[in-house]
Structure formats: structure tokens, C-alpha cells
């Protein structure tokens, strides 16, 4: 919270600086000792525009602290320009450029502190939750899920799940270069109500999950509610998967649940020629055109 207030303050600073640059570019260039350079006022106006952009980001964003990095980038540019200006000048102009350089360096430090705090805030275990309502009786929905070997039929990133015994299973995940394997164990289970599992320690990624089944509102259908937690190493993997497949884990879970619903209600995962491999919301730009696919899909 403090960090965000700090970031908003930087946003107001950007707004003031931007306005000053645009309203009085000559005064600004004189103050920085670069008023002798050709095109200096144009550069000052461009810098002003950039500051207004920072202001929009910092004042408009939900979590503004992360956007402070944009200011750090701008500061670095200014430091470069002012450094060269100071080196090439003498006398009063040099003094003014050096003073500006010092001021910008101080602001850069502030921006960097703010941005770092903003980024640090998003660390920690990653939690994802999603739910869906399925037009089938609770028992049927529960049993389909409890047979873990059914999971790959709707979780697109899963290659296979092999059950070892009542509690343990081996999960194979599709990787970009090689398949990743991990073992999971069921740590709690109430027939028809919920299943909780976690990855077996020492088998790579640390994840834990809970799926619950409850009667839908008005006694219609079944509500399936999934919570997942990725521990520190798992978080990285989740991020990597997100990068490779172009989707956030949250989106992935929602899409998996939608396919689960399709399988339960219609007996199949719906496919269109535009996205034959299933649905990936953030990959919409990579979709094939909606025209028939040549060869066997």
C-alpha cells in the first residue's frame, strides 16, 4: 500500500515534469545547460511527452509500483544525455548540466527503490482458483475426476496420468523439449465431496490442489471448485509454462474446467478449425484461420 502511494506520488511528479517540459521547453533546456544544442527544445518536448506517458501509467494502473520501472528506463536515458552534455561543455553551462545530472541521479534511485518494492510484492506462492457448474449429478462428476487417468482428456498440458495405487499417481506433463514427470499423492479425500493432493516432496515441482464438488444452486447440477497452489519452484515452472503456451495459470485452469464440463455434458472436447488444439485465450492472435484443416488433424 505504502509502495503504491509512493508510486502515485512519482506519477504526479511525472505529470508536473511533463507539463513543464511541454509548456516551457526553453526554460527547461536552459536549466539543464543544453540550450545551445540544435533541436534542444524538440528533445525537451519529446521528454515531456514521455513523462506524461509515465504519469498515465503510474496514476492509471491498478498496481502502479511495477510501472515505476518505466520511469527508471526514462531516467537512464536522461542520465546518458546529461552526462554527454556535461562532458562537452564548460563554465556555467557545465555546472548547470552537472547539477541536473545529480538531481536526475537522485530521482533514479527513488524510482528504482519504488519499482523494486513493486516487483517484490508479487512474489510468494502462486494461488489460482476457478469454478464451473456442470449439468450432471454430483456422484457422476466426482467419479470421473477421481479416476485420475481421465484428467488428460480435458487438461491439455497433461500427457498422461498413471495411478500407482489408491493414493499415488505419476503425472506426465507436455514440455516444449522434454516431458516432465512428477508424482502426486492424495492427502485428503471425502467421497463425492472433495479431493486434495500435493506433489510428492523431492519429485520436482511443489504444487498442491483441492477440488470440491457441491450441489449447484437450486439443486441443479454440480459446482466444481478448484484451488491450486504453486510453491516457490512450482511458481517458476508455472511461469515457464505460461510463457511457452502463452497463457496465465489462472486462464489455464478455467479453460481446463470448461473442457471438463464439455466432456461431462457432451462427451467430447469441442474443437473448431480455428483452434483445433483446444482453447488458449491469450493465444488468440496465433489461431489458425477458421477454414478447414488440410490432412488429418
Amino acid at each position: 500500500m505504502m509502495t503504491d502511494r509512493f508510486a502515485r506520488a512519482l506519477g504526479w511528479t511525472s505529470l508536473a515534469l511533463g507539463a513543464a517540459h511541454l509548456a516551457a521547453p526553453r526554460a527547461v533546456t536552459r536549466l539543464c545547460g543544453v540550450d545551445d544544442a540544435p533541436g534542444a527544445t524538440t528533445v525537451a518536448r519529446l521528454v515531456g511527452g514521455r513523462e506524461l506517458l509515465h504519469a498515465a501509467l503510474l496514476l492509471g494502473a491498478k498496481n502502479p509500483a511495477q510501472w515505476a520501472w518505466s520511469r527508471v528506463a526514462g531516467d537512464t536515458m536522461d542520465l546518458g544525455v546529461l552526462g554527454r552534455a556535461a562532458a562537452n561543455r564548460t563554465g556555467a553551462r557545465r555546472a548547470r548540466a552537472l547539477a541536473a545530472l545529480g538531481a536526475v541521479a537522485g530521482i533514479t534511485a527513488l524510482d528504482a527503490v519504488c519499482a523494486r518494492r513493486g516487483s517484490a510484492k508479487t512474489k510468494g506462492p502462486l494461488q489460482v482458483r476457478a469454478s464451473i457448474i456442470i449439468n450432471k449429478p454430483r456422484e457422476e462428476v466426482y467419479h470421473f475426476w477421481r479416476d485420475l487417468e481421465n484428467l488428460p482428456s480435458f487438461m491439455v498440458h497433461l500427457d498422461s496420468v498413471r495411478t500407482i495405487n489408491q493414493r499415488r499417481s505419476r503425472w506426465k506433463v507436455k514440455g516444449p523439449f522434454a516431458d516432465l514427470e512428477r508424482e502426486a499423492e492424495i492427502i485428503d479425500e471425502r467421497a463425492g465431496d472433495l479431493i486434495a493432493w500435493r506433489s510428492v516432496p523431492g519429485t520436482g515441482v511443489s504444487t498442491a490442489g483441492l477440488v470440491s464438488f457441491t450441489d449447484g444452486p437450486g439443486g441443479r447440477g454440480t459446482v466444481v471448485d478448484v484451488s491450486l497452489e504453486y510453491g516457490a519452484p512450482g511458481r517458476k515452472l508455472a511461469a515457464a509454462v505460461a510463457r511457452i503456451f502463452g497463457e496465465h495459470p489462472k486462464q489455464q485452469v478455467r479453460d481446463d474446467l470448461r473442457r471438463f464440463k464439455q466432456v461431462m455434458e457432451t462427451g467430447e472436447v469441442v474443437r473448431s478449425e480455428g483452434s483445433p488444439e483446444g482453447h488458449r485465450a491469450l493465444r488468440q492472435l496465433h489461431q489458425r484461420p477458421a477454414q478447414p484443416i488440410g490432412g488429418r488433424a
Partner: protein
Amino acid sequence: MKANVWAGRNRLEIQDVPDPQILNARDAIVRVTSTAICGSDLHLVDGYIPTVKKGDVLGHEFMGEVVEVGPGVRNLHVADRVVVPFPIACGACFACQDGLYSVCENSNPNAGMAEKLMGHAPAGIFGYSHMLGGFPGGQAEYVRVPFADVGPIKIEDDLPDEKVLFLSDIFPTGFMGAEMCDIKPGQTIAIWGAGPVGQLAAASAFLLGADRVIVIDRFPYRLRRVQRTGAEVLNYEEVNVLEALRDMTGGRGPDACIDAVGMEAHHPTPAIYAYDRTKQAARMETERPYVLREAIMACRNGGVVSVIGVYGGFVDKFPMGTVMNRSLTIRTGQCHVQRYIEPLLDRIRAGEIDPSFVISHRMPLSEAPRGFELFKHKQDECNKVVLTP
């Protein structure tokens, strides 16, 4: 096979594309015998519907002959003649079981994309953008029809294509527009848009017992055509629509108003038209909602505004105060075609209506781009184009 493909804003091409094949057990492949150009296709061509991609096969109004069925389809066989509803629906979800087929919860594989734009996802639609599924359309020689055991209706008698083709889209759409008005005998219904859907909405309003139907448009040839249904007409370039409707209804206003125009409406006042046209061109709003605004203003207190014209995104300056203070009801939706197709086929069979009266042009599929030109620019008194592959 040959197909009509979107090749960029205002660019259509007949291209050679692969033949469709069965992807899922409940698919069927249909050889298209007749397909049509729909007014809502124009929004795609003009580039106002988000997530249309170069290479997309267009067309959502079609019928044909089954040439292949997946193992999950038991009620259709090769050589059956079928009309295919434009929304794709699974028949098993809560929405389908409630008769709300165009918001089927399972038929849109890009539901995540649609959710981001609309909050929740509607059903998949043939040839109507990736947000609505990314399904190839029916302006082609063959189409894959998902959930073929739910939507398509068999035409077993010798009714010609032209009489039944529009069961796929515009006839049920016009009918639903009228049905949403809850028409009671003696009522007056106003309809904006004298295109094929407006014409069929007018005919449907009379079927459902309306006393008077008043249709508003600016093209004399379309107004002449809709007069055949018994409707009265207003040309909005010649009269002030709000005043005229007030005068025609004893000052009270029509009992229900149907917007059969949608997002690319025109306005007779250049300044107002330019305002929304500019915002739309800059992609700051997706709609030009004059008809919607005017229908709301015109409707009598406590009346119904029925919206069947297509909207794609966000509307500017929506008169919500009028809607609230005057107890108006707004009812909308892409047509739940599957709900209407059987009863409307019965009405065609019984001779109560022949929707083929809207057809003005017939041409081979290979001339689809020219058909779009004629239809879009209202050249040659173009009203409805039927294409034969």
C-alpha cells in the same frame, strides 16, 4: 473446395481451401446446396466485429445434403437434406435445455476470449469470428457441422431450398424479434430496418396477431418490398420518425419497437452521423446506436424494445434514464434458432408464410464477392442474395 474467404477489411476472395473433415464424433459434413449473404456478414466484412482473421471462411446461413456423419450422430444419415441453424449448440447444457441455444455453454472453444470482451461467453457461430468459436462458415462447397445431432433439421418433403433456407437464420431471427414483443391483438409494432430480417419480422408480427406494423428505412425499394407484408412505412430521410410515430399512435407510441438494424445504422442528421462514425472509425466505440436510441425514445410507456440487430461491443450515450423512468423492457439475443426451426417449418408447410419473398438475387458461390458488393451498397435494388455452390 471453393470457399468465400475474408481477406482483410472490405476484401473478399473465392479461395481453394481444404475439404472439411470429421473432427469429433458428433460432427457431420454437409455439402452445401444453398447459402445466403446475411446483413450481419456486412459487419464482419467492414471489420467491426473483433477477432476476425484473414483466411476465415464466411457464411452462417446455409443448407445442404449430409455426405458424412461421425459415429455419435444417430438421427442423420448420408443423403439427408438438412437446414443448419447458425448458432452451434450442444443440446445438453443448462442453456440448451432452457431453449437458449445461442448462449450454449459448450459450443464455443474460444470462450476465454469471449469472456474477456463480454463477461460471459455466447455460443459458437459458423463463420462469425474467433471470439465466437473460429468455425469455418457455410459460403463454401462443404461445411463441418458440430453437434449435428442437435441443430440441423431434416427436410423430408419436396419443399424447394428457397422456401426453407432462411430457417437457418433470418426467418427465426425476424420471428423471435416479433415474439419478444409479447404481441397482443390490437397492438402496433414499429420495426427499424426494412432489410430481409425487418421484412420477416413484419410478416411474423402479423402472424402473431399485431394489428399494425410500421417499418422505418430510407431505401424506397426496401420499403416497397415490406409493404407486401401489409406493413405501413416511414422513410426517415423524409419525416421525423419520433413525431410521425407519435401521430400515428394517438400520442402514446408503438406498443413494441424492434431494432432490426444494429451497429452500422445511419442517421439523417450529418453532424450526429459524423460524431459516431468518427468515434467508430477511431475504434473508440464499436457501434452507431441511433436506431437503439430512437426505438427507446419512441416506445410507449411500459413497452418492449426488442433488439435483433447485431451489436459487437460498446454503445455511447445510451438513454438509460428513459428506459428506467418509463418502465421499458429491453429484450435481446442472437436467435435461438433450434427452438423455432420446427414450428416455423410447420408454418411454411401449412402455407402460412413463404419466406422466399425476400430473395432478389441468385448467383453462383463463385460470385459471392460481387453479391456482397450489390448487397452492401444496395445496388440493383438488392435485397437478399442466395448463392449456389
